[in-house]
């Protein structure tokens, strides 16, 4: 009897929901972006509200664009393409809805808490710990729904887009959890478990790979599905897509330290970051060319089809941004560009050009299909494209010019390199003001274009009937890969690990660890073992190469083993960077200088500094560069931030570095500066923090904060809550008295007093006892 066919309907409802959320949150995120960009030119644009300052809104902008706009777009694209690639409906309607509503609740929570100043003080990881837990939970829901769908698939082979999605789900989970490990001090506040250099390294391992695995790999998966569909021809080279995937996964995870070049980060880590960043050129451009060449033979459609216009421009911007990234990772280029607007331009070429245009192309392709209605206006979509393109070009060109100008001015010296050519930081700020204005115009144009798309979509779907895609499958066709003819290709747990490639890799990795972390004898044994493993692997491959390739073939149709090996690939890169630093970053290992623990009042001030997002404009890291040292003082040592939970090295200087601002100015200078920055620094664009002269310092929170700091290893005595409060009040009285003598009447219980106490301690450290060893002795010799 011939098999009967039935119709299987896809769950496109959740795709439509994520798609609409993309539009809504995209507008919110970009609107806040334009506002914060305008605030840099017009400081009054915070409307005298402490909730709308640059320091509080900038994290809202970045989080909204990354997690709300790109996140929702990514989920829509993944859910749409996965169902069709594996020929199965999403496994669970409930999980799909939980995923959607959970994610929107998280975004809403972020939009409320960030302006309130509830933050962890780490870039792109600002959300407070209860929201972190919610993010992890919803991500797991997403993962379960996705892998459950794969388990029920009717198509055994995994298209390369699915590979990229798997890498995204696994790696983002790992990065997010590690970088958000915290010890709470209250329901809305916590300290990260990593401090100082550990925190810096973990943060940029996360930060860089958030770009890699949240903003890049899922979008590449979307590219490999939607561009072939849009041009109606297969990807240009499937071989290249395979190389693209594995090389990105293996290489990207190592490149995080390039965000910390010329700082006090150990040299080997900086070199590691530079090396792997440069290696990224090859896979990134391979993928970019693969995307562009997929459109071969369809270039004529670009004149009329807005979908292809957006895709072609998006892939081009991907190429541009991934050329610029490794370029900026070269230490000498980085010395010029780091902390300037060049980095902002680079990021926005990727976010607006690559992510934003891929989102637009995907939305214009999907909407007519999900609502079964022609797009309201192709002309409007074309206008959107040109507004967006001109907007990006204005934005990026302005930021390049601004960044290079400011970098050159800040680094310029005279008198044979002994004197700064522009000693006043504000000279450089006022020079780049026209570019900052240009950036607002460029961003504004992009936002207008995006709003046109939202309007276009609204007009398209108004009165339209949503439709779900469907396929015909055999009624008696069993669900799951085991039912497929290729079921004999299953690997199983044993087959995943007990095979030549994995066995030799694990062996080599184990010996490498022994070599690097072991004692003298163990280290030697590890080195010999590693060399033997490599030789044996080569010999085995030469003699039994077929078993190696057979294993790889089976890997391509087995989700679990494929996922496990992807985890190992990204895990290795992360662990090798982080573990040595976590193990060695202790006070007993320090040489030269060691930070003094903050007094209770200084700690309260530091938390205010973090609350206000001061790190979004001020770094606390004087690089090992002559102009930095001439401008800000002696270069920063690792030990000087060893008790900083979280670290505050910063990544952008809209204002000067503050690593050694302590005791540089009298207390009253800080008070006047915070109250009205322009009364002290004419031309400053810093917002006023007059509210700190009114609000009271939360001393009641200090005992639990100090208790957590003690758990983290900060050597505080076992003070009672009364002792902590008394110490804080005594110090506050001293600061307030000094202010009074200088003519400023401020009550000691005000936030400004704690903030001044913190600022005045920056850069004050004590000498550490040098450990005994050949390197230490050699360093003491002339």
């Amino acid at each position, binding site marked *: 009897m011939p098999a009967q066919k039935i119709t299987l309907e896809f769950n496109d409802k959740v795709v439509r929901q994520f798609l609409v959320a993309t539009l809504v949150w995209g507008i919110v995120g970009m609107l806040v972006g334009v506002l914060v960009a305008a605030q840099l030119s017009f400081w009054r644009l915070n409307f005298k509200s402490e909730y709308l300052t640059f320091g509080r809104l900038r994290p809202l902008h970045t989080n909204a664009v990354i997690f709300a706009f790109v996140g929702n777009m990514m989920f829509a694209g993944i859910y749409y393409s996965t169902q069709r690639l594996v*020929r199965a409906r999403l496994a669970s309607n409930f999980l799909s809805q939980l995923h959607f509503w959970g994610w929107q609740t998280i975004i809403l929570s972020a939009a409320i808490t960030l302006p309130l100043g509830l933050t962890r003080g780490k870039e792109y990881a600002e959300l407070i710990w209860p929201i972190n837990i919610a993010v992890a939970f919803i991500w797991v829901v997403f993962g379960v729904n996705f892998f459950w769908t794969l388990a029920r698939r009717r198509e055994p082979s995994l298209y390369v887009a699915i590979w990229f999605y798997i890498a995204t789900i696994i790696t983002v989970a790992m990065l997010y959890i590690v970088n958000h490990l915290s010890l709470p001090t209250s329901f809305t506040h916590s300290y990260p478990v990593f401090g100082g250099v550990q925190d810096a390294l973990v943060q940029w391992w996360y930060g860089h790979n958030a770009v890699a695995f949240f903003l890049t790999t899922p979008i590449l998966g979307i590219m490999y599905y939607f561009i072939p569909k849009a041009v109606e021809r297969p990807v240009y080279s499937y071989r290249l897509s*395979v190389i693209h995937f594995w090389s990105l996964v293996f290489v990207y995870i190592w490149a995080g330290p390039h965000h910390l070049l010329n700082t006090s980060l*150990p040299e080997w880590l900086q*070199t590691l970051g530079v*090396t792997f960043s440069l290696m990224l050129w090859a896979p990134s451009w391979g993928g970019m060319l693969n995307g562009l060449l997929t459109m071969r033979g369809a270039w004529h459609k670009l004149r009329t089809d807005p979908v292809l216009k957006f895709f072609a421009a998006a892939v081009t911007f991907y190429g541009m941004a991934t050329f610029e990234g490794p370029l900026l990772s070269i230490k000498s280029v980085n010395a010029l560009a780091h902390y300037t607007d060049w980095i902002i331009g680079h990021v926005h070429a990727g976010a607006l050009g690559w992510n934003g245009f891929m989102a637009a192309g995907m939305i214009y392709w999907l909407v007519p*299909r999900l609502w079964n209605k022609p797009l309201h*206006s192709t002309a409007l979509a074309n206008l959107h494209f040109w507004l967006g393109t001109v907007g990006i070009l204005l934005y990026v060109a302005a930021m390049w010019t601004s960044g290079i100008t400011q970098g050159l001015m800040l680094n310029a010296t005279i008198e044979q390199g002994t004197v700064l050519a522009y000693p006043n930081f504000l000279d450089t700020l006022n020079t780049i003001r026209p570019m900052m204005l240009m950036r607002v115009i460029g961003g504004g144009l992009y936002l207008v274009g995006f709003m046109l798309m939202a309007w276009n979509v609204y007009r398209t779907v108004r009165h339209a009937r949503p439709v779900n895609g469907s396929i015909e499958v055999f009624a008696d066709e069993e669900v799951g890969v085991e039912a497929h003819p290729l079921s004999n290709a299953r690997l199983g747990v044993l087959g995943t690990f007990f095979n030549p490639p994995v066995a030799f890799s694990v062996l080599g990795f184990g010996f490498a660890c022994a070599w690097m972390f072991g004692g003298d004898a163990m*280290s030697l044994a590890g080195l010999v073992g590693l060399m033997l493993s490599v030789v044996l692997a080569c010999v085995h491959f030469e003699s039994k190469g077929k078993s190696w390739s057979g294993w790889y073939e089976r890997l391509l149709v087995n989700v679990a083993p494929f996922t496990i090996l992807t985890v190992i690939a990204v895990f290795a890169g992360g662990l090798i960077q982080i573990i040595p630093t976590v193990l*060695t970053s202790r006070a007993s290992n320090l*040489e030269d200088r060691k930070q003094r623990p903050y007094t209770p009042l200084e700690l309260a001030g530091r938390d205010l500094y973090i609350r206000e997002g001061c790190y979004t404009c001020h770094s606390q890291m004087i690089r090992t560069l002559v102009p930095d040292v001439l401008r800000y003082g002696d270069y920063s040592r690792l030990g000087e931030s060893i008790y900083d939970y979280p670290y505050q090295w910063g990544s952008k200087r809209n204002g000067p570095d503050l690593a050694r601002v302590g005791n540089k100015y009298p207390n009253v200078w800080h008070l006047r500066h915070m109250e009205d920055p322009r009364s002290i620094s004419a031309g400053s664009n810093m917002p006023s923090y007059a509210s700190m002269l009114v609000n009271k310092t939360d001393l009641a929170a200090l005992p639990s904060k100090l208790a957590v700091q003690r758990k983290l290893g900060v050597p505080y005595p076992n003070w009672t809550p009364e002792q902590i409060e008394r110490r804080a009040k005594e110090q506050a009285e001293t600061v307030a008295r000094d202010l009074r003598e200088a003519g400023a009447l401020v009550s000691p219980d005000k936030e400004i007093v704690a903030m001044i106490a913190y600022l005045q301690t920056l850069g004050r450290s004590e000498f550490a006892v040098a450990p005994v060893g050949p390197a230490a002795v050699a360093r003491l010799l002339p």
Partner: protein
Amino acid sequence: MFKRLIFEQSAALFTVSAFLTAASIYLSIAWRALRMKRPQIERFENLPFQTATPAARHDSSPAPSA
């Protein structure tokens, strides 16, 4: 190795070994990908077209089903 925080010159070896590891993996994958057979590639690259897509419904130029 890695007993102290700042002055560990021998740690530079680590960068070299990491580079060699990544490079060898990259070359292995590239070699494997280049040796993929044509039928296998055709099967993979046509996976997006196994599920029919409704017609492109742009108002100017409706395209045929894929």
